[in-house]
C-alpha cells in the first residue's frame, strides 16, 4: 500500500483521531460515520454541493498572484482568495456541505460552535438558506471581540448562546455545543467548524474543504504550467483551511507544507495557542490529538489575539503531519501577525482576517527562492477584525 498521510478506515491519522465520545453521542456520531461517505459519493449530493459552491459561495475562489508582495520578498506568492467566498472565509465550504448532509440525514435543527464568528456566520447563513433552525454557541469573550459577526448571526436568524465557562472562548463554546447535542440526540445535526471532533468529523470537514486544493491544482497549472507549488502555507486553528489547502497534496512530498500557529505573546510566554509545540497527546472534543494541557491532563486556556486560532487543540490530521514531520510548524506572535496583516492591506489592498495574518507573517520568518511558487491560503477577510486593527495600530 502506498504511504498516505490521510485518514485510515478506522478513523485515525497514524495514532491520532478516533471517536472518544460519551455514549450519549454515539448514535449521532455513528449515524454520521455510517452515512457520510455514501451521501457524499451520491451524484445528486455532489451536484447540489457544487452548484451552491459556484452560484452561492462564488467559487472557484481566485488564485491571485500578489505582485507587490512577491517583489518585496523576492519570490512568487499566490494568494488563494477564500476571503472572497460568501460570508468572507473558507468556513462556508464546510457548512454548505454539512447542511446538505444534515438535510439528507433528516435533521431539522442545527447547532454550531464558533470562535472568530466566521463559522457561526457560515452556519447561520446556510441554515437561513435552507430554512433550518440554528443555534450557535460562542464564548463570552469572543462575543465581545467579534461583535460584527454576532450581529450578522442575529440578522441571519440564528440564536447566539454565550459560553460562560472556562476561558469563555472557542473550547468552551465547543463544550456547550456538544452538551446541546447530547440533549438533542434525534433531530439535531452538529456542524463542527473545523477538522476537529470525533471521527468522522475531521475527515468529513477536510473533504468539504478539499475543494480548495482541487482548485489550486487547476489554477496553478493554468498560471505556472504545473499543478505543484513548492510551498503550501496556511494558518492552523483547528486546521480546516489548512486541511483544505493540503488535501490533494498530502501524499505528494515534492510539495512542502507549512502550518502556521498562533504564538500569542510568545510561545513560552504562557499566553499562546501554539498547539503543536506546546501540546501533548491527549483527548479533546472526542479526538485523540495534540493539545495544550497541564501535566495532570487538564486542558489549558490558550491565548491569541485572533479568536479563530485561540483553540488548545489541533485536528488529528495536523497532529499527524507534525509528528511525522510531513509539515513544518511555525508559530507567529500577535505582533508578527498584526504587522503582516497591515502590510498586505497596504501592499495589495486586501485586509486579511487576523487568523490569516498569521500565515502571511511567514515571509518575515523564512526565506524563499526567487523561483519558488508559494501558495498561501487567504482564509478570510478582515472586516470582522477592523476594531482590533484600529486599536492595535492606533489608526
Amino acid at each position, binding site marked *: 500500500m502506498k504511504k498516505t498521510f490521510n485518514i485510515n478506515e478506522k478513523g485515525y491519522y497514524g495514532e491520532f483521531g*478516533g*471517536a*472518544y*465520545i*460519551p*455514549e*450519549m453521542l*454515539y*448514535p449521532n456520531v455513528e449515524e454520521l460515520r455510517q452515512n457520510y461517505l455514501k451521501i457524499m459519493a451520491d451524484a445528486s449530493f455532489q451536484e447540489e454541493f457544487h452548484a451552491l459552491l459556484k452560484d452561492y459561495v462564488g467559487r472557484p475562489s481566485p488564485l491571485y498572484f500578489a505582485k507587490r508582495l512577491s517583489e518585496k520578498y523576492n519570490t512568487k506568492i499566490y494568494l488563494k482568495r477564500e476571503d472572497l467566498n460568501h460570508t468572507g472565509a473558507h468556513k462556508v465550504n464546510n457548512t454548505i456541505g454539512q447542511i446538505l448532509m444534515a438535510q439528507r440525514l433528516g435533521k431539522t435543527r442545527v447547532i454550531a460552535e464558533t470562535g472568530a464568528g466566521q463559522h457561526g456566520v457560515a452556519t447561520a447563513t446556510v441554515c437561513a438558506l435552507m430554512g433550518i433552525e440554528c443555534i450557535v454557541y460562542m464564548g463570552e469573550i469572543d462575543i465581545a471581540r467579534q461583535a460584527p459577526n454576532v450581529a450578522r448571526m442575529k440578522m441571519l436568524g440564528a440564536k447566539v448562546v454565550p459560553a460562560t*465557562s*472556562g476561558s469563555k472562548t472557542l*473550547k*468552551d463554546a465547543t*463544550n456547550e455545543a*456538544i*452538551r446541546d447535542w*447530547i*440533549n*438533542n*440526540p*434525534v433531530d439535531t445535526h452538529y456542524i463542527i467548524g473545523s477538522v476537529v471532533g470525533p471521527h468522522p468529523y475531521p475527515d468529513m470537514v477536510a473533504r468539504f474543504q478539499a475543494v480548495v486544493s482541487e482548485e489550486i491544482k487547476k489554477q496553478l497549472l493554468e498560471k505556472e504550467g504545473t499543478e505543484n507549488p513548492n510551498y503550501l502555507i496556511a494558518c492552523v486553528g483547528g486546521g480546516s483551511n489548512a486541511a483544505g489547502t493540503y488535501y490533494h497534496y498530502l501524499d505528494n512530498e515534492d510539495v512542502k507544507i507549512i502550518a502556521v500557529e498562533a504564538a500569542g505573546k510568545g510561545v513560552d510566554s504562557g499566553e499562546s495557542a501554539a498547539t503543536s509545540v506546546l501540546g*501533548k*497527546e*491527549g*483527548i*479533546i*472534543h*472526542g479526538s485523540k490529538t495534540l493539545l495544550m*494541557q497541564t*501535566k*495532570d*491532563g*487538564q*486542558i489549558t486556556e490558550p491565548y491569541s489575539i485572533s479568536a479563530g486560532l485561540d483553540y488548545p487543540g489541533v485536528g488529528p490530521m495536523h497532529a499527524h503531519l507534525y509528528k511525522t514531520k510531513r509539515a513544518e510548524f511555525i508559530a507567529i506572535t500577535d505582533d508578527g501577525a498584526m504587522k503582516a496583516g497591515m502590510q498586505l492591506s497596504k501592499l495589495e489592498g486586501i485586509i486579511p482576517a487576523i487568523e490569516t495574518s498569521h500565515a502571511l507573517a511567514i515571509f518575515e520568518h523564512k526565506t524563499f527562492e526567487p523561483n519558488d511558487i508559494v501558495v498561501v491560503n487567504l482564509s478570510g477577510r478582515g472586516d470582522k477584525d477592523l476594531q482590533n486593527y484600529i486599536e492595535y495600530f492606533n489608526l
Partner: protein
Amino acid sequence: MNRINKKLKEEKKLLSIYFSAGYPNLDDTETIIKNLEKSGVDMIEIGLPFSDPLADGPTIQKSSTTALKNGMTSDLLFKQLEDIRESVSIPLIIMGYFNPILQYGVEAFCKKCQEVGIDGLIIPDLPVDVYSEQYKSTFEKYGLINIFLITPQTSEKRIRFIDSVSNGFIYMVSSASTTGAKTGFGDDQKLYFERISNMDLNNPQIVGFGIFNNETFAQATQYAKGAIIGSAFIKHLTKDGTENLNDFVSSILSDN
C-alpha cells in the same frame, strides 16, 4: 469478589451518590465518603474533576471547576484516598474523563486505584470498543470493573455488546441529556426503563441522570437495581456543606 459485584447481590435497591472530589473544599473527600456511608448510601462515585466535562450539566461542571481551582489533581485524590479502606467498606468508583487518566498513564492509574481500594471506573468518553481492544486486560489485571453507559438511543444490538463487555452493572442514562438537565420522569422514560428491564441483561442496571428526590428514585428503581444521584447532591453540598448528609440521604430513601 469485587465489592461492586457483592453489593449488587444484595436484595435491595441501591442508592449511589456522585460528588466531585475537592468540592466544596479541597480536603472534603474523606469526610463526604465517610458521612455518605454512615447515612446508608450503597455506593459512591468519586468525580475526578476535569476542565472540560462535556457530558456534565452546569452543576457538576461548576463543582469540577471549583475543585480544580481548589487544587485537586489525580495525585492528590489518590493521596486523600490512601487510608479510606481503613474506615469505609462500600464500593467506591472513580468517575472521570479519559484525558487526565491518559496523562497519568492508564496502567499507573489502574494500579493506584487498586492500591487505595477503588473498585471500578466510569469514563464517559472512553468508548467501549477502544476499551475492549486496548485497556480491558489492564483493568482486569488490577481488579477494576469498568462501567459503561447506555441511553434511550442506544440500539438493542449495542446494549447487548456492552452487556457482554461489562462485568459489574450498566449505567443507564435516564434520558438523552447532560446531567442535571431534566426534572422528573415522563412516560418515555418509564417505557425505556421497562424495555431495558425486559431485555434480561447479564448485568444489572443502575439509573443515572435526573434523580433528585424520593419520587424519582422510586420511579428509577422500579425496574432497575439502583439509581445514582449527582447534581442534586452537589446542590445539597453547596447549600448545607459536608456534615448533614444524613438529611439528604434519608429524604431520598424515605417511603422506600
